[in-house]
């Protein structure tokens, strides 16, 4: 027993130094002012940032749903492939993650721009000419960059692996005898999926959602590069308080704290919902 404790020490120390202490600092900063006194001043104006909170949560929600809609079928199909194929696909999913996050997002900028790759391709294929002739319009490009859609796209692209990998690793481990038993008892493939595979894959889905939603809410560079910086997200707002124009770590900490609480509530609600579902179906 004691030995097990010893094995946990590095992790406990790590968590204490790099998670607990910073959290305490965030709380401390949030409730103090630049002059050092205790204050609630930092929270007083939180209302004026409501639009940023709402926008961030909404875009992160959209990105998470899209990741789930793409990621789940992908993981499911993948788990049915042979081991060689699986390895290749997992590799392909991981591959973009070997490239720097910033660079990947910058690349999307030049793909989506009005004079970017997609629009240039459509122009050279004569698509715009065709449309203009038929509808008597005068478009030369499709506006994609600097929209909220581009921001969501950037989130989906960057965080999709975090959805696929946990779901895949759970589905792949589902005991095939459970599925065979269901089939023996006369369940069709739809029923097998609905009653066996999906409920058993829920833990993967839940951790996938968490791993996409949380970084998506707090991302800051995606909206800057793909959103044009005109509609900032929470991450940008916080970054601005620490590294940007409005240097105010106290306000930044207060915003971070509120964000953390909102994320915690989201996760709590989702986990409760998930647990109930899982038990109900299996029982």
């Amino acid at each position, binding site marked *: 027993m004691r030995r097990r404790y010893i094995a946990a020490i590095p992790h406990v120390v790590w968590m204490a130094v790099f998670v607990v202490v910073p959290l305490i600092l965030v709380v401390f900063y949030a409730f103090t002012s630049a002059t050092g006194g205790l204050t609630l001043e930092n929270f007083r104006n939180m209302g004026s940032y409501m639009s940023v909170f709402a926008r961030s949560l909404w875009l992160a929600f959209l990105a998470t749903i899209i990741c789930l809609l793409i990621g789940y079928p992908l993981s499911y199909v993948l788990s049915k492939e042979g081991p060689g194929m699986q390895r290749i696909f997992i590799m392909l999913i991981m591959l973009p993650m070997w490239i720097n996050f910033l660079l990947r997002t910058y690349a999307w900028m030049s793909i989506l721009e009005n004079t970017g790759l997609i629009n240039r391709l459509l122009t050279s294929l004569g698509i715009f000419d065709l449309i203009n002739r038929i509808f008597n319009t005068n478009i030369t490009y499709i506006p994609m960059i600097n929209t909220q859609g581009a921001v969501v796209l950037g989130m989906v692209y960057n965080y999709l692996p975090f959805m696929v990998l946990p779901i895949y690793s759970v589905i792949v481990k589902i005991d095939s005898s459970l599925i065979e038993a269901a089939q023996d008892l006369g369940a069709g493939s739809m029923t097998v999926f609905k009653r066996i595979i999906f409920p058993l894959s829920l833990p993967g889905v839940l951790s996938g959602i968490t791993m996409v939603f949380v970084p998506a809410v707090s991302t800051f560079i995606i909206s800057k590069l793909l959103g044009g910086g*005109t509609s900032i997200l929470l991450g940008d707002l916080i970054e601005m308080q620490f590294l940007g124009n409005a240097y105010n770590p106290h306000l930044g900490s207060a915003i971070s704290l509120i964000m953390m609480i909102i994320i915690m509530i989201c996760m709590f609600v989702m986990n409760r919902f998930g647990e109930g579902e899982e038990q109900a179906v299996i029982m």
Partner: protein
Amino acid sequence: MKRLVSLVLVLALTAAVLLSGCAKKQEQKVVNVYNWGENIDESIFKIFEKQTGIKVNYTTYESNEQLYAVLKMGGTNYDVIIPSDYMISRLIEEGMLEKLDFNNIPNFDNIDERYKNLEYDPANEYSVPYTWGVVGLIYNTSMIDDEITSWGALFDPKYSGQILQFDNSRDAMATALFHLGYSVNTTDEAELNEAYELLVQQKTILQGYVMDQIYDKLEGGEAAIGPYYAGDALLMMENNPDLAFVVPEEGTNLFVDAMCIPKGAVNKENAELFINFMCDTDIALKNMAVTCYATPVRTAYEALDEETRSNEIMFPKDDVLNRCQIYKNLPQETLNLYDQLWVKLKS
């Protein structure tokens, strides 16, 4: 067994690298330079290292405000920083700069008298000027047929979706203040609010807030017009001849960026050597060829050929300079108002 062997090998290698790294650190003299992006000829670092044996660690920032935040947060060890005028006076006021030992900077004599003892550092104790220039409008003549003469172009719905704006509060507010005819150093709340309202209106026709991304956007024809610094404008015009630079008739900002040493710098002497090196005539010339920013080093200016000296973007004529305003550091309440308005604008 094989695994064990390879593990040992890897560990040994790592240890070797780490140890050699430590050993090297002890003897290698360094100077940590923190500068604006796209603002130096990095090849001169090798010359400096050859001359002095000091290695230059070079990193960049995007705006004066970012530099300020990084310094204020602490935990950094920069030896040379290159803020602009108003930021220098703020740093001096807040006691964040070291006084320079000019005995170590004999090349200070090369600096043109015009750029010494400027308002931001009246006794010239803390800074050595590095570049100077003006802010202006850069626009693509193949996309905009009109001749641009006024800041108003930035707020003209005619160019909707084609306009870029500074992604830092001081410069962005200045574009609006110039257009409204107010001083860029105003502390009048009503005037600042009016400028803010103008920026809010502008947001609906804006393509985006940018700093160095403006290079890609203007050179590639993605955007048609945006405000930026003269030196960068010249670099962009080299890559896209359709681009033009104009100093608006309402006047503009004249800036001086100067080299300073932040309080508590570890390698202060190396930093002074580096500053001295940058004021060397040949180095200043070489650096200027890459950055396209006008140099305050008089001896370098005198060594320039007639064509470069008559470049009015790099060395604006007096009628332009007379229309210019230099940013001053603002009182704390005004700075707070700037911060509030900027966050409100962006969210």
